[in-house]
């Protein structure tokens, strides 16, 4: 090998390198606020788009980015939507329907002996889920997640849906001919759908929607998160379920994927979620009757039962399967209570640094910050007056610099939230970590020796009594708090 060849080889290796995919093949459903957190430090467009995400799509589920995630996401949500429908007979119908699609696979020349193995994995899962629904054992969701996290089972099902897509394209060549190079659908499928290592593309998704999703009475939409300008994610694919007269079916389950360049995950609206859990219960008359007699003021509709179930810790997630995956992002959504505590401490370094050199201006804005903070420790008599009159300080001192006046609002809400009073010694745990959720927090500034009103500040300047304010009293009192 010459050097040039070696270099070319190394270049090829490096451009083909992909970090090994980690995480479960299909993750636990989690709050989509985790996506917002993930992009907290990213490009502003991503920040804006992901910040708007949780309001519309409350939950999401990760798929491992191993090159199969698009197929996996569609297959998983297909089964999940069947669970959402919750009708045990639907599983049998689907198996019969898919079995009849075997003609397509035979027709385009796949060996029956070979494809039936892959199809059997899908049929077996249908049967298991049907049994679970019939027995109302509540295990269906766990069965589904476990099956898709079994490498062999999930690859088999993925291969099956890919063959379905490929067979659909090839047997509906007229619909797809104009979208593939040279109009050669067979070659296209051989190169872009059938190979084991090929991600779902638009043609594959469209074909699978027609073959698998729509006839089952489901819709499919793909939401695209990229850096294109805009304030929300865009819908890049949409297919409605239609009845025999090509009319859209109302309230049909919708499969939702989140696409980020090169990767698919699963999205849910808040309304998509509770239904799977209510199904086993709603089909259980004795339980409902019992509840009705026990709770007079409690109407035991199916949805109520489900809501109650989700409120019981541990019931929501019987398997505990995704514990490892949960990690940071999970905590973020699960315990919002921890945030007010963390917020004043962690952003401190970022908020403070630009201010430090200008000691005069820091004195200026300290006053409003101080007074607002002081309100917490006031006697009730002073409390109202003080809150109503913060502008009085402003005539005495130069107006606060613009960025700071914006900042003031955020700490107010945080600080009033609890009895926690930060001091300079509490900075250490979060110091240096940059959490951008609320980047500007100044309420704790008054406890800092960067504050010229602090006795450790080299430019120490005690706060002064103002003759025309009621502030004198609590200022003095407050100082004893801080030093």
């Amino acid at each position, binding site marked *: 090998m010459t050097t040039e060849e070696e270099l070319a080889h190394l270049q090829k290796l490096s451009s083909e390198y992909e970090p090994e995919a980690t995480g479960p093949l299909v993750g636990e459903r989690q709050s989509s606020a985790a996506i917002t957190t993930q992009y907290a430090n990213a490009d502003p467009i991503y920040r804006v788009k992901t910040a708007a995400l949780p309001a519309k799509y409350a939950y999401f589920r990760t798929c491992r980015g191993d090159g199969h995630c698009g197929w996996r996401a569609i297959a998983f949500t297909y089964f999940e939507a069947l669970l959402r429908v919750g009708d045990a007979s639907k599983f049998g119908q689907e198996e019969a329907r898919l079995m009849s699609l075997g003609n397509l696979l035979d027709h385009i020349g796949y060996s029956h002996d070979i494809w039936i193995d892959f199809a059997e994995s899908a049929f077996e899962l249908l049967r298991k889920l049907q049994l679970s629904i019939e027995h109302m054992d509540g295990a269906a969701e766990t069965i589904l997640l476990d099956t898709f996290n079994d490498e*062999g089972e999930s690859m088999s099902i993925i291969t099956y849906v890919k063959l379905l897509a490929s067979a659909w394209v090839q047997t509906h060549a007229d619909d797809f001919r104009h979208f593939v190079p040279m109009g050669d659908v067979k070659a296209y499928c051989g190169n872009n759908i059938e190979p084991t290592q090929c991600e779902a593309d638009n043609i594959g998704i469209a074909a699978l929607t027609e073959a698998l999703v729509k006839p089952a009475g489901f819709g499919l939409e793909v939401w695209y998160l990229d850096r294109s300008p805009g304030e929300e994610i865009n819908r890049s694919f949409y297919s409605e379920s239609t009845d025999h007269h090509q009319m859209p079916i109302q309230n049909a389950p919708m499969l939702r994927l989140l696409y980020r360049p090169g990767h698919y995950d699963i999205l849910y609206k808040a309304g998509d979620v509770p239904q799977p859990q209510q199904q086993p219960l709603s089909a259980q008359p004795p339980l409902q009757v019992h509840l009705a007699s026990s709770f007079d003021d409690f109407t035991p509709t199916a949805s109520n039962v489900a809501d109650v179930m989700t409120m019981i810790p541990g019931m929501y997630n019987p398997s505990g399967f995704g514990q490892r995956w949960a990690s940071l992002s999970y905590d973020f959504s699960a315990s919002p209570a921890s945030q007010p505590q963390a917020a004043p401490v962690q952003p401190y370094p970022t908020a403070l640094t630009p201010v430090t050199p200008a000691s005069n201006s820091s004195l200026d804005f300290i006053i409003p910050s101080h007074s607002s903070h002081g309100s917490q420790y006031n006697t009730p008599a002073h409390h109202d007056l003080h809150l109503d009159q913060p502008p009085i300080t402003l005539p005495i001192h130069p107006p606060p610099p613009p960025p700071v006046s914006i900042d003031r609002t955020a700490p107010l809400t945080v600080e009033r939230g609890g009895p926690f009073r930060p001091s300079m010694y509490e900075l250490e745990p979060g110091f240096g970590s940059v959490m951008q959720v609320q980047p500007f927090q100044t309420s704790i500034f008054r406890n800092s020796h960067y504050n010229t009103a602090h006795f450790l500040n080299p430019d120490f300047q005690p706060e002064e009594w103002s003759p025309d304010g009621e502030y004198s009293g609590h200022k003095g009192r407050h100082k004893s708090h801080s030093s």
Partner: protein
Amino acid sequence: MALSSNVRGNNANATVAQRLQKELMDLMLHPTPGVSAFPSDENMSTWTATIEGPDNTPYSDLTFKLTFDFPANYPYAPPVVLFKTPVYHPNVDFSGRICLDILKDKWSAVYNIGTVLLSLQSLLGEPNNSSPLNGQAAELWDKDPAEYKRLVLARHKAPEELDG
């Protein structure tokens, strides 16, 4: 994850053996003229195969021996296929490694031993000269068929001459 990798590994091996069992059955019941294959160890993970050189090509009347080595995630990854018989061919190197897309990135789980052998058989008669492993062979294929044929025969060894 609930499944330990060990359990999954065993499952995978069982699936591979099951699938290969099926392929063996198919090859026995529906033999394809010109190709054959049979497991060479008891757990079926390696196979030995033969293909006849296609007629009207420099390889006609020659028999080639190959080995198949099946990964634990077969059929979701291709088998490693090597020519054991030395082959003079643009897409086969001197250690018997083969450059064929369906054995690499275009591998599909619907392919099997039979389809691979048929693809290799047609590759002998229709080399892909745009990305050769053996540049000289690619050049001679068009330029000097007689010399090409001479080199093919010079390199070839009958199966009984091979030690393996």
